């Protein structure tokens, strides 16, 4: 958890939009039970895709502009980015393989 990149409204563009490699952001919050279910899955995927896809988390309590910018009204939401554009959006808690399939398409 501590190792996973945490992005905020301040560094979102720099880290994600301007990233050289594809990226995925897990929008979550402490008060969201299902987010805590997805959390460990995202951490595992971050290791699997280390160096190939930048995987980050954004706490929607601390950063409110970015979730609004992407029209997020449900969490957990995972947004996958390629070349600074939204490539895919996954709402809700899904098995690791399901997210893995979506990530493969980014490469």
């Amino acid at each position, binding site marked *: 958890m501590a190792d996973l990149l945490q992005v905020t409204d301040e560094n979102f563009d720099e880290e994600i939009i301007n990233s050289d490699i594809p990226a995925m952001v897990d929008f979550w919050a402490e008060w969201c039970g299902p987010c805590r279910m997805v959390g460990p899955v995202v951490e595992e995927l971050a290791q699997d895709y280390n160096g190939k896809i930048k995987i980050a988390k954004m706490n929607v309590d601390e950063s409110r502009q970015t979730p609004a910018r992407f029209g997020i*009204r449900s969490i957990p939401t995972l947004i996958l980015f390629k070349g600074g554009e939204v490539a895919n959006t996954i709402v809700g808690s899904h098995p690791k393989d399901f997210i893995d399939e979506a990530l493969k398409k980014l490469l």
Partner: protein
Amino acid sequence: MEDLIIIGAGPAGLTAGLYASRARLRTTLLERVAAGGQILTTDLVENYPGFPEGISGFELVDRMKRQAEKFGLVIQNQEVTRLELSPEKKVVVTDKGNLECRSLILACGAVPRRLGVEGEGPFTGKGVSYCATCDGPFYRDRDVAVIGGGNTAVEEALFLTRFAYKVHLVHRRDKLRATKLLQDRAMAEPKIAIIWDTVPLRFIGEAAVDGIDLKNVKTGETSHLAVHGIFVFIGYDPNNELVEGLLDLDEHGFVITDNEMRVSVPGVFAAGDIRSKSLRQVTTAVGEGAAAAFAAEQYLEGLK
């Protein structure tokens, strides 16, 4: 071959796992995402005995998981895709391969029921939600609607008053089904307005929800309610895809068991929200999980 496989790591499955592990059965619990279940969407569980101050759904289930693992329960991350059930042998086909077991406990749970109105699917995640604790904070100072009149609907309406400007509770009858305590709280809450005898016709919006068309079932009158969020709590549908056609189900698709949690195939048991019953709570799920594990143990004894 395993003595017992349990499918689903919510309160029912974890309790079955706790009892089975303490009975020294060779047990594996299979879960598709992670331990949790419906209870994860509950902010504060106030009716689970032993926690007078209440406990968060996440913490309660996390404690159950740690308790079961302490006694040796193995939880594996596998999605079950098919079951082959016979009295002699149960085959559990997963995304990672085939597993065989002598007995099986189904604790697959249930999911919130969809209304089935126009706009519901397209706007899910864009204003339509089935989890107030997840999505409530996105509606600070906005008007929202809650559809339903049972315990979950009223509890979640009360939770949403922390964020929303106004919570419209849309209910198809002229009285709530929720327990009296919750009804009293809802009636006393100035932010909640109850719209009686009314059903949603369609959810409306462009990029996201901005309203609902409603119909009064007594007068036939239609109306429009402007809201940014719609929270649907009208009951649950069982996760029964694996057992349709294999086991006896009730008219709503829930698995029928006897008092010992036995289903229509010997050596197979069901516990928790997937079971046909009248009360779906953590308290009932854990009791059924324990009973199912005990019944499985007895069944296995009988095979020797």
